[in-house]
């Protein structure tokens, strides 16, 4: 299915209209007002190009913008690029930029900024983009002042999914060129193209953004001021929402059981939409270099011994879905036709007996990921189930830095982790399974040490496929093999709930949810 050049410029206005119609119904948007939110935890910086943690994207997403955005169905949407075109051989990608865009300091946004971002800034500062640009991109050029062209060395079917805010935030060349990006003082006074500008950041208290009067979309943004409050205690965050101090709770701002309670309040709306691009999928990360995890049957036995529905229902308060495949069910290429692991202790014990592993001879160090109480409970549950199978298990306490180091250095027996999918398996999933990605130094690579040449081959084939059906077939087979091997103990797809007061309209509009520029969001007066 070779496609001739596809031009999708017409979508520009359409997408906005569709979402407006769906969310706002008959109401007419009004301008003005202040929106109060929470940044949890307080971000280390707002410079999205240097840090892509959740709170950085949430606040920084109002300041910086990507070249593209993505709908809730992961369809491509314009952002700083108004149109895009792919050549027939899948090797040339041409983006047409928006006109009249200005940086917050008044300088015009040009094609040079995009080239600088792609070729220099992100190549140096952004691990995911660095991998893509070094592996696939041959040249980045500009044939005319409003167009930028990426020429690839070989086809890469996921390329168009690498341009949202967290993967490709466009940064100003005139501020960063020739400087040390990480120590540039401008990181404290971020200059972007987004609908809001940084006014004040009172550390430990709030981040205050104000309307960008020169925003490139006429008549927008509608809201005057944004406050991101910093409230370190989980219970206090729930109270702040109840009292109306904040209007919006992002997924993870309050604990699962609070979500249930707050959702039932009057005048409160909720959705699990707006996470489609990320679709976090949680798994047990076990070290395949060490026994008993080097034994495939033992891994299968443990999978059958863990009641993942119980984990979702009781520990995560139903805010999730038991994982079926390494691909989240919300993403492209997901298939249900895989090896499945229903909870079955008898079968688990039988498989363990077949494996030849004597569980009482193994002491498994269970290391929770230090991201809060629900992860702790998950670790305690898994430990308990390992003990049911006859293993000895002990919990290890560790802080965030220690966890990151232990996983990066492959110094663990069993831990927990989750992956963002970034819209395409080649971007979010493959990194955990490719043998070429068995690298130290990051906790988000193939740290478990999985080597399967067939899986490598299938991922490679799918990523370079120009034809979508070909990619689909390769990915379907990869999912089958991975669920049979279980190099990572797939647990569940996380469902993050955004909660807001219903005076806030058109808050969650795209597949990146509240990280999307809130230019069309408005507050009923």
């Amino acid at each position, binding site marked *: 299915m070779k496609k001739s050049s596809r031009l999708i410029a017409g979508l520009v206005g359409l997408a906005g209209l569709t979402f407006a119609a769906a969310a706002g119904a008959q109401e007419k948007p009004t301008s003005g007002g202040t929106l109060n939110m929470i940044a949890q935890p307080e971000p280390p910086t707002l410079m999205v190009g240097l840090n892509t943690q959740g709170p950085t994207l949430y606040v920084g997403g109002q300041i910086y913008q990507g070249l593209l955005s993505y709908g809730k169905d992961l369809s491509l949407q314009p952002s700083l690029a108004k149109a895009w075109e792919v050549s027939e051989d899948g090797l040339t990608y041409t983006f047409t930029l928006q006109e009249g865009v200005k940086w917050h300091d008044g300088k015009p946004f040009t094609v040079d900024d995009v080239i600088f971002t792609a070729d220099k800034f992100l190549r140096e500062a952004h691990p995911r983009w660095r991998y893509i640009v070094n592996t696939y991109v041959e040249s980045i050029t500009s044939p005319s002042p409003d167009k930028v062209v990426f020429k690839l060395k070989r086809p890469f079917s996921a390329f168009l999914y690498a341009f949202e805010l967290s993967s490709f935030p466009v940064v100003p060349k005139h501020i960063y060129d020739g400087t040390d990006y990480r120590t540039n003082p401008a990181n404290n006074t971020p200059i972007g193209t987004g609908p809001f500008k940084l006014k004040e950041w009172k550390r430990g208290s709030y981040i205050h953004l104000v309307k960008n009067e020169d925003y490139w979309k006429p008549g927008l943004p509608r809201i005057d001021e944004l406050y991101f409050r910093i409230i370190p205690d*989980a*219970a206090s965050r729930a109270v702040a929402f109840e009292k109306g101090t904040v209007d919006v709770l992002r997924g993870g701002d309050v*604990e699962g*059981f*609070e979500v249930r*309670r707050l959702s039932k309040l009057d005048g409160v709306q909720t959705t699990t939409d707006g996470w489609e691009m990320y679709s976090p999928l949680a798994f047990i990360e076990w070290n395949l270099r060490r026994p008993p995890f080097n034994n495939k049957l033992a891994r299968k036995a443990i999978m059958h011994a863990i009641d993942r529905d119980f984990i979702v229902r*009781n*520990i995560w308060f139903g805010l999730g879905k038991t994982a079926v495949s390494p691909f989240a069910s919300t993403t492209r290429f997901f298939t249900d036709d895989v090896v499945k692991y229903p909870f079955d202790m008898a079968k688990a014990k039988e498989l363990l007996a077949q494996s030849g592993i004597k569980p009482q001879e193994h002491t498994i160090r269970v290391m929770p990921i230090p991201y809060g*109480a629900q992860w*702790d*409970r998950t670790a*305690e*549950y898994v*430990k*308990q189930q390992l*003990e049911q199978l006859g293993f000895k298990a*002990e*919990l*290890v*306490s560790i802080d965030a830095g220690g966890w990151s180091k232990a996983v990066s250095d492959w110094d663990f027996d069993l831990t927990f982790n989750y992956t963002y999918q970034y819209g395409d398996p080649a971007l979010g999933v493959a990194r955990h399974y490719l043998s070429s990605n068995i690298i130290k130094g990051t906790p988000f690579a193939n740290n478990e040490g999985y080597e399967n040449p067939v899986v490598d081959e299938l991922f490679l084939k799918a990523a370079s496929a120009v034809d979508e059906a070909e990619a689909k077939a390769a990915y379907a087979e990869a999912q089958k093999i991975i669920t049979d091997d279980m190099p990572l103990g797939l647990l569940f797809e996380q469902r993050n709930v955004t909660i807001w007061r219903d005076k806030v309209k058109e808050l969650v509009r795209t597949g990146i949810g509240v990280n999307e520029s809130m230019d069309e969001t408005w507050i009923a007066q």
Partner: protein
Amino acid sequence: MSFFRRYAQNIGALIGLAILAVVVFVALAAPILYPGSPWQGVAEPLLPPFEDPAYPLGTDLLGRDIAAGIAYGARVSLLIGIISTAVAVVIGVAIGALAGFYGGRVDDMLMRFTEFFQTIPAFAMAVVLVAIFSPNITSITLAIAVVSWPPVARLVRGEFLSLRSREFVQAAVVVGQTGPRIMATQILPNAISPIIVTASLMVATAILTESSLSFLGLGDRNMMSWGFMIGAARTMLREAWWLSVFPGLAILITVLAINLIGEGLNDAMNPHLRGRKG
């Protein structure tokens, strides 16, 4: 009047002793009362208390029996309380005795050393120590001991200072007893009452410190402890009060009992208070 008669005059002290006896019994009998691990889920999650007679105090998020957790938590609390106090008393008595008996430069050096520890807030130092030597039961016990010996050292030094000039000590010097022997056989037995009273109260403080450490997530993750139970459940106070209230009561009652006992011991052993009604 004998010591026990005097102690028994204090009703509060008797109640304290009775409560502590129950706590000790529960701690010792935990493996018999609840044969499985307290970490094992056994029933429906979040079962409220007083509904199912098999789980009178209810269950937590993972269906773990709260009553079993409290029984096993008593073991951890008492173990850490007693051992850390024993270690602290040994260190404190040794340093205080040397300083008080020899005086002069030895006294100066040892007391400056003690003051160094006294100037650092005890709990903050315990947190730092446990964080450095990854949290497990040994490091927690030692950390509590390290932060709690200075008051014992000051107390013992004071007792030794006043006792060493008494006639019976001078007599021992005259008959040629060595310094260490005089300290161990002449002075220490006469200074033992205040040490016992202080130590009994230190056990209560140690239990509270361990609970606070566990509450902050710095407990031994493989041992069920009261502080851990509260720390894990505190955010759910409104939804499932029984998860934190019962372990909280356990801490309150145990610490109260030990304090009552300490008070009773003080009354019974302090000659100046003899005749005071409890």
